């Protein structure tokens, strides 16, 4: 059985592999080098086994972890009353998914943050007793008050930092706008928490602000999604917790070395979602910088790296970038995870070679444009620019169809009437369900991988 095998290697950091996909050939005078870097972590086996049989884990066998559940308890959660009940049930399901030995706490969020369980500025350690106690404590949750998400995050950070653990993770549920603190306050809280724990964010119903929820997930390197129907919360919370329990190593950074005279034009995660990382670089020695990627279980992600190198003569070859993975350690040193990928530039007069675009690069360039076209299209639609919105969403339909992103194509079809998908001809729907528009916006960054 898989879980039995996995138990022997539990404390191990997964094996990381780096694969580079690029056309390294440049024409004479060419400078821009694009590469898709696939990072794959394997060997821990925790995702499969934790999901299949979480209770088979006993204390000390999984990577040490702490989880904070942040549940919106603002007044609006009572409209309709099923929303609060569903949030309680979902939190209860998430608690059931906690692996034995994992530290956890439940935070109730309004315009202030309150410890719901265990209280006293501590974390509980998951076991049959604490799980039952926590679920009991959820009954006391009641709706009333405002929304200041920054305070919830700061409390979660304080609680999570009390445990000496490898993985720190938050799950945040909100149903409304962050009305009781300034955007600057939320931004400051996110800056303070970034790199200290990862956090998934969920919006329930349709009264919340998509950009707030996606902004939280993006800053804290977690996932964002909409749960339009509160009845779907329990299943979603269970999945989120299972994923969190599958994480094996935290704070992994993508380290990019580039040679002298080279400009990093951008670094972005492109699968499973588009996540801009360019601005999140921290310098790491001469000509090297680290880009945060958060925590990893058994999973694979793709990154698009684009650098501009100084031109060199025909027949010349240079290393345009070296990609490796590191974990920062106390004291400023890092643990190098071993795997590395080389991004090259080779100048050639073979036009066939230098003019072709690597299929992976082409695909993800399209996926990034797709996400951008959806966001711009929806913004223009809200601003009343019908022509602009039609053009952008038409382009999105075209890109989604061409790249085989069926999920996004389906979401788009709920917002526009597709006249000709291949040509990108669409008409805005006169009436669009708010949930459909918010789902499209929240999930606009989801990508598909290259069809092989």
């Amino acid at each position, binding site marked *: 059985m898989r879980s039995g095998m996995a138990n022997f290697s539990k404390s191990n950091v997964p094996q990381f592999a780096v694969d580079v996909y690029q056309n390294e050939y440049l024409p004479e005078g060419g400078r821009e080098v694009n590469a898709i870097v696939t990072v794959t972590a394997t060997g821990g086996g925790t995702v499969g086994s934790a999901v299949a049989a979480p209770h088979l884990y006993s204390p000390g066998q999984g990577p040490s972890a702490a989880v904070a559940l942040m549940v919106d308890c603002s007044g609006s959660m009572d409209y309709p009353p099923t929303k609060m009940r569903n949030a309680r049930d979902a939190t209860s399901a998430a608690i059931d998914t906690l692996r034995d030995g994992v530290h956890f706490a439940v935070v109730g969020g309004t315009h202030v943050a309150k410890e719901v369980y265990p209280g006293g500025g501590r974390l509980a350690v998951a076991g049959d007793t604490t799980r039952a106690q926590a679920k009991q404590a959820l009954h006391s949750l009641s709706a009333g008050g405002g929304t200041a998400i920054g305070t919830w995050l700061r409390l979660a950070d304080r609680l999570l930092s009390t445990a000496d653990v490898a993985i720190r993770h938050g799950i945040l549920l909100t149903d409304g706008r962050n009305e009781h603190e300034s955007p600057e306050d939320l931004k400051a809280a996110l800056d303070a928490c970034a790199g200290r724990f990862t956090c998934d964010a969920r919006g329930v119903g349709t009264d919340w602000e998509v950009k707030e929820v996606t902004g939280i997930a993006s800053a804290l390197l977690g996932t964002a999604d909409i749960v339009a129907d509160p009845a779907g919360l329990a299943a979603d919370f269970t999945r989120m917790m299972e994923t969190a329990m599958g994480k094996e190593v935290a704070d992994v950074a993508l380290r990019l070395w*580039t*040679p*002298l005279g080279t400009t990093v034009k951008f670094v972005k995660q492109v699968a499973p979602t588009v996540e801009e990382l360019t601005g999140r670089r921290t310098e790491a020695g001469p000509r090297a910088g680290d880009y945060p990627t958060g925590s990893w279980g058994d999973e694979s992600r793709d990154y698009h790296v684009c650098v501009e190198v100084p031109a060199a003569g*025909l027949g010349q070859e240079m*290393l345009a970038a*070296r990609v490796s993975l590191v974990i920062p350690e106390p004291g400023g040193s890092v643990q190098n995870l071993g795997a590395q990928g*080389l991004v090259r530039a080779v*100048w050639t007069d073979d036009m066939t070679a230098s003019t072709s675009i*690597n299929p992976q690069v082409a695909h993800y360039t399209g996926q990034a444009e797709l996400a951008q076209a959806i966001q711009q299209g929806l913004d223009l639609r809200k601003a009343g620019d019908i022509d602009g919105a039609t053009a952008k969403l038409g382009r999105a339909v075209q890109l989604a169809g061409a790249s085989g992103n069926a999920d996004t194509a389906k979401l788009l079809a709920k917002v526009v009437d597709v006249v000709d998908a291949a040509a990108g001809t669409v008409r805005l729907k006169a009436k669009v369900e708010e949930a459909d528009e918010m789902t499209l916006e929240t999930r606009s960054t989801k990508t598909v991988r290259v069809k092989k």
Partner: protein
Amino acid sequence: MSQMPQQAAVSKCPSCEEPLEPGDRFCGACGYDLSVVPARPEDSPTLAIHGVVPAPDDVDWPVARDSDGHGHPAPVHAAAELPGTDSGGSPLPPPPPAAPPSAPAVPVAPAGSPATGVRFDRPGEPEEYPLQAPDPRLTAEPAPVPGQAPAPEPAAASRQPAPDAAEKVCVACRAGRVDDDGYCENCGHAQPRERDHMEQESGPIAAVSDRGLRHHRNEDAFSVGCTALPDGAPASVAIVCDGVSSATRPDDASLAASRAAGETLLGALPRGTHPQQAMHDAILAASQAVNALADEPATAREQAPHQNAPACTLVGAVVTAGLLVVGWVGDSRVYWVPADRTTPPARLTEDDSWAAQMVAAGLMNEAEAYADERAHAITGWLGADAYELEPHTASFKPDRPGVVVVCTDGLWNYAESAEEMAEAVPLDAAARPLHGARVLVGHALDGGGHDNVTVALLPFPAPSQGAGSA
């Protein structure tokens, strides 16, 4: 452009057009003295061989068939057609079962499907570009070939900084250290690799290989060596291979093939194997070495989709006191350049190329064939995905001294005809082979250096011991 040796042209009496039999000294119809047939003006491998070749001591090599002293070109032989003897005159042990029973005298493309088995020696439709850094195991100092006297000369000083084991400094920016992958830690530039420029002398022969000016790595390889026959007579060996660029790891293929063939020849000749048989066996050994590469698991760095089997061409020559044996697969060539430049030079190999096959099959004339974009596609190569391997070998008994030029198309693209090649070969090439090889590589670089360039020079006859050390 390259040309097949037109056997038909010399299989008729030049006087009365009567068909001739190989070995005829006089025309059976009109009595025309065939020994005075003038050498064809083209670069067909015409070697006037008059009289008796001075045989070294007791060795009585069989006369290569059809090298009969009538100016007939030596046709392509399957090695098995030419039973070798050891130097005592005794029959050799039976050839290995791998040797094909016979091979057609001239490789001919199937007329209905001329492109079948054709391989372009350039990237095809690029989709992915798996660029393999040279395997460090293989790019390391070439292992010395047994019987090979001097160690390889270091690469040309202009390209190679003084070796400093402790701290290699980048040749491009002169500031950065060189990392383990061979790139500068400062400016990122790839450092000259061992194989970018290689020179080697071995006794009286020498070879030079260069990356050229347009390719980012050298996918050619060579091996040269000297040995002695059982009777102590000297023998020189040169093998030159050209990696097929559209295949995976072409540089590994050429290196493996040149080594395997060189080692096979240098092992077989001292045991008394007939040089033509030894050449045949060497090509088979090279083929197996290249095939074996396809079975090796890709290293992490080489993991890439769309890999295909490593492949290369091979051309080689063995020179003894009285015999010149050539062997090849692909479009790398051997030229004969007599010391007396008033006598005609010759090309001794026939390309396994699409154009050559079209001309040979009579489907196109030379102009048409070489105007086609498929002209330079090769139709024979070493590699796991090669069609049935057809090693071509031929032996010659030149009647005068000269120099044997063994080269890749990176050179002959700039000196295609035998006359052009002879013009490029310095007059003292037999005496100063390393210098001569450098001059020839320079000729290709001056012409544009569009491909890797490799050339080996072997003086004929092999100088007796002590006479030829450069």
